[in-house]
């Protein structure tokens, strides 16, 4: 822990006060943006919350004509796509982090690391376009027919894979989301793997551990809370991702058990419908959706941050 700067000398105290006030004011601004966003979503969504109460969350009616709005389908779509995205992204990210910290020769680590970071830099609108024009047709032609043929007839999980292979739907959106959050989870996992004390690893090697045993019995237990934090960080990103999902999810307000069917998510519903919302209640319902999204991502990201703080990362990067 480094000592704080010593107190300023008395000369220039007025200017010092001013400088301190300006910087503190800017810091307050961060809180103001966050608090203002939360407050304005709550205020803007009040009409919907008043009109529908708890039914807003439990009803699946989304009918602009009769003025009935229930958010069950977008809530389900948001959660389902985010969770499937995590199932895809978490093992892949840990694998890449392992390559970056342990397996790859040193000269190869920086290029691979940069490439993965570029995956995070690609604007989400590009993911969306690629998803719509390239990946969804690819899924429809090659992956989904195979899935519904082989997994469709099975009991229980078969219902997840029934329906026409149209490419647009929960599964495609989940995969695109998964790709998008890989770099975020990888970056944190790499940092915390690197932060494992060398002595611990050396001790494990001295005991004759293989690489897998070091990972599963030393590295992962040691970094557990940070890895969970990284997963939550990825979840927070996935929940709020808008453009990519909007392109490939299909904007359908139907609740379907099949992952091959079009669905909706909170962010996609807002992006698709907000500028077309023609009544105050409609607009308010979409803002109420944004409020729910904001609250959930806030909690998820706060949990992520708390878990990352526990391991005391001092050199970690935040994005």
């Amino acid at each position, binding site marked *: 822990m480094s000592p704080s700067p010593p107190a300023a000398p008395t000369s220039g105290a007025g200017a010092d006060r001013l*400088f301190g006030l300006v910087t*503190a004011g800017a*810091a307050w601004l961060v809180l103001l943006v966050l608090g203002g966003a939360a407050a304005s979503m709550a205020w803007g969504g009040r009409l919907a919350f008043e009109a529908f109460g708890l039914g807003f969350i439990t009803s699946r009616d989304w009918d602009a004509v009769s003025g009935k709005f229930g958010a069950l389908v977008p809530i389900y779509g948001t959660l389902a796509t985010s969770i499937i995205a995590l199932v895809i992204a978490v093992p892949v990210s840990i694998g890449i982090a392992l390559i970056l910290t342990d397996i790859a020769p040193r000269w190869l680590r920086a290029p691979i690391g940069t490439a993965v970071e570029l995956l995070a*830099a690609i*604007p989400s*609108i590009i993911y969306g376009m690629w998803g719509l024009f390239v990946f969804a047709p690819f899924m429809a032609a090659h992956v989904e027919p195979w899935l519904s043929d082989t997994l469709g007839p099975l009991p229980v999980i078969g219902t997840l894979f029934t329906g026409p292979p149209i490419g647009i739907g929960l599964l495609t959106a989940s995969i695109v989301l998964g790709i998008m959050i890989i770099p975020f989870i990888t970056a944190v996992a790499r940092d915390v793997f690197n932060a494992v004390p060398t002595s611990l690893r050396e001790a494990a090697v001295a005991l004759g551990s293989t690489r897998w045993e070091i990972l599963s019995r030393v590295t992962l237990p040691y970094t557990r809370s940070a890895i969970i934090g990284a997963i939550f960080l990825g979840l927070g990103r996935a929940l709020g991702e808008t453009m990519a999902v909007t392109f490939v999810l299909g904007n359908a307000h139907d609740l379907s058990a099949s992952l091959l069917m079009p669905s909706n998510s909170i962010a996609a519903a807002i*992006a698709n419908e907000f500028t077309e919302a023609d009544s105050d209640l409609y607009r308010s319902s979409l*803002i109420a959706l944004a409020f729910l999204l904001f609250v959930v991502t806030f909690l998820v990201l706060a949990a992520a941050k708390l878990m990352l703080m526990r391991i005391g990362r001092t050199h970690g990067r935040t*994005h």
Partner: protein
Amino acid sequence: MRLRRQLTDIAASLFALAATVFGLTWLVWILWTTVVEGAAAISPALFTEMTPPPGSSGGLLNAFYGSAVMVLLALAIGTPLGIAAGTYLAEHGRHSRLAATVSFLNDILLSAPSIVIGLFVYELVVRPAGHFSGFAGALALAMILLPIVVRTTDEALRLVPNQMREAAFALGMPAWRVTSRIIYKSALSGIVTGVLLGLARIAGETAPLLFTALNNQFWSASMAQPLANVPVVIFQYAMSPYDEWHALAWAGALVLTIFVLGLNLMVRFFARKGSK
């Protein structure tokens, strides 16, 4: 037993390798598609003509202009505020309760859904004003930029060795001059890196612009009016049924990707060079 351990180990290594190939395949696939489709659609008209009505050809000049103006205005708003707040976290407010709170919440704002920021600015500016505007778009982008600059400034300032501060204070300099004359200078490359990465991020942001700047088919230089911009044009054109619009969307996507990834690579290259 020994064999099984070794096989598990090999399997784990192979899995890690496959994961990396899996991750990088998407990067190559997405970039390949963007380059092939975009290059086929790029022409001089892209930079000289306005966005066309459905079914005819044109360019994206007004969208490029609108994006540039909004991004620059967002930089002008977000950079000084972000640097000031970052300075508070790392220097003047270090160890204060406010700094700890802001630092925590800033990271949440950093990852918060950008669509919520768009709606916030809609409620804040667009609804009271009664119409979409370029200014609202710039404000939304500035709010997205702010936490990025705060975090990178904070980190860059913390890297400055404390001896520098102590030496400056020993010479009798007031704190504000220590920060502005000494600390900023030695942290400059880190701060600039953060601002440029923030620029790359907001240049591609789409969701917050949907409800703030929206789009404008015609040439408009007024920040008080709806303003065309590259991301929203890409979104609307890609979702449309017209081939000409699809081609323009790909061309815009290619230009945007080259800009964003080029900036990222450049920043990383110089940051690495500077740290050696």
